[in-house]
């Protein structure tokens, strides 16, 4: 007498049956959906973590100081695009770097995704795209808040929406890729150091709190800061949001950001692969 596996955990295995084909695209979408669900659960903490610092800066320099007449009214115009640039960059970099450090460092949670039947590099690419989306969300959150805190800004226009979106996407991609690289290349115990040694100088010398043209007064610095991708995000935001004030050419911004994305994308994905496959 043959018995059937009534106690079975799943359908009996037929090893002669062909394996179902799995499309890489559907796996990519599933991975992205997972990251978005997790991000949605943590949205409040996420926004506090990534936009608190720029918003506090905004309150002091965009609201209090102009009211005290310590800075001119025009400063707000220079500051707003910079604050947006910082918010989206911080959000993009943290959304990737922090989970990478945690996952590879101690929780090993990413293992279930590394078992997915897709090339390992696709899993890294998805993480970068998820980080990009979170950068965009941070920018979309900060813009209206900034506008409310600062009051009307005469030079601000939203007529170049396409350009704004392009700069936001490229900037998020650049910093999300950088986050992938840093998060997989740096030892977990050095993550605090990453923020003080790499991210903090990027913020302060990224022409976010002042326009690049302002550095005319310190020519050496004006050219030194060009290695900092934040400069292009901030200047790009100025060119797209406040085009009437002096800013770097959007073509230069676009080319520089594309080069940055290509570089950090390559480094980030390579470094992820090294961590994932021993």
């Amino acid at each position: 007498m043959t018995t059937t596996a009534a106690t079975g955990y799943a359908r009996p295995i037929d090893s002669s049956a062909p394996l179902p084909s799995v499309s890489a695209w559907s796996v990519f979408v599933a991975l992205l959906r997972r990251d978005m669900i997790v991000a949605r659960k943590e949205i409040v903490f996420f926004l506090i973590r990534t936009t608190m610092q720029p918003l506090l800066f905004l309150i002091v320099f965009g609201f209090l100081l102009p009211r005290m007449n310590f800075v001119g009214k025009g400063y707000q115009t220079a500051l707003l695009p910079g604050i947006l640039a910082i918010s989206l960059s911080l959000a993009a970099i943290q959304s990737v770097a922090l989970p990478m450090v945690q996952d590879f460092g101690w929780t090993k949670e990413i293992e279930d995704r590394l078992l997915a039947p897709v090339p390992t590099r696709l899993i890294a690419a998805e993480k970068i795209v998820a980080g990009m989306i979170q950068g965009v969300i941070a920018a979309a959150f900060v813009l209206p808040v900034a506008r409310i805190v600062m009051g009307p800004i005469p030079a601000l226009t939203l007529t170049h929406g396409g350009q704004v979106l392009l700069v936001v996407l490229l900037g998020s991609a650049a910093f999300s890729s950088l986050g992938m690289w840093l998060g997989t290349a740096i030892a977990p115990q050095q993550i605090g150091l990453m923020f003080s040694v790499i991210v903090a100088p990027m913020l302060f010398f990224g022409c976010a709190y002042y326009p690049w043209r302002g550095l005319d007064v310190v020519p050496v610095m004006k050219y030194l800061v060009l290695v900092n991708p934040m400069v292009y995000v901030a200047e790009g935001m100025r060119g797209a949001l406040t085009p009437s004030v002096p800013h770097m050419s959007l073509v230069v911004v676009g080319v520089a950001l594309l080069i940055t994305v290509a570089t950090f994308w390559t480094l980030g994905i390579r470094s992820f692969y090294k961590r994932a496959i021993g």
Partner: protein
Amino acid sequence: MAPGGPGAPRGEIVALQGLDLEVHEGEFFGLLGPNGAGKTTTIGILTTRVKPTSGTALVGGADVAHQDVAVRQRIGVVPQRPNPDRGLNVLENLVFHAAYFGIPSSVATSRANALLEQLAILDKAGAKVEEMSGGQQQRLMIARALIHEPRVIFLDEPTVGLDPQTRLSLWEILRRLHAEGRTIVMTTHYMEEADKLCDRIAIVDRGQLLELDTPAALKQRAPGGTMIELTLGGDPASVVEAARAVDGVSKVEAQGKVLRVYSDRGGRVISPVIQAAEDGGVTVTNISLSEPSLETLFVARTGRKLD
């Protein structure tokens, strides 16, 4: 599945050397060895998480080094320590893992519920994974390894750190999976676990294959019947000859302060051996006695205990 001689030098460390073995379809295969034997490296290579630097390993005909995607499609993995996705709840852990294998969420949800029920953790479906005990998390890992219905399941020391009762219930689960015809490859450093569950066992140590056979055949191969270990107060070397002369003793070894005596007559040789030691002016401080087992075979082959 036919892993053949994966050698994995990582830096200066060679984790595996000439480990040639073949696991048959539907088999429950055990890799038994002490910590550092190379078991986890072997599983890492077979599950595409570690690249072998030389040699080849095939899973269901797919090469782990060059066809990693095809290999991953065929396998389910239960890790040594549970590593559930803490961003997701219990049910989501399963449904998303299925989605990573292209399984639509309606199919995955019904499969997940069935698995959770059979593994007796259905009441935790909506819970956060932190709210589960270690044993429950390990069962979740088993459900996750099964949700995409893989052909081969790899378990890396699945019962480490579990209490005895949880371990027994996990054994029951593994037995049922095996009965369904699944190929299971499990590493362990528990003799009893390998003995009770596996069809065949490979005993590995320091990256090398020492023995490969069914548990029964391996036990028969254990040397000279009962193993008696005497811990002595002095140098055992002086006692070796006298112990060897005792009737019923087939083999005597000295290692450190331990005198290892293999007896054809069970424990009956103990008292003459103690007498021989004391006649030689050496006191006996401890005695242990083991029936022919995987343990005695392992000790005989390596000169070391398993854990």
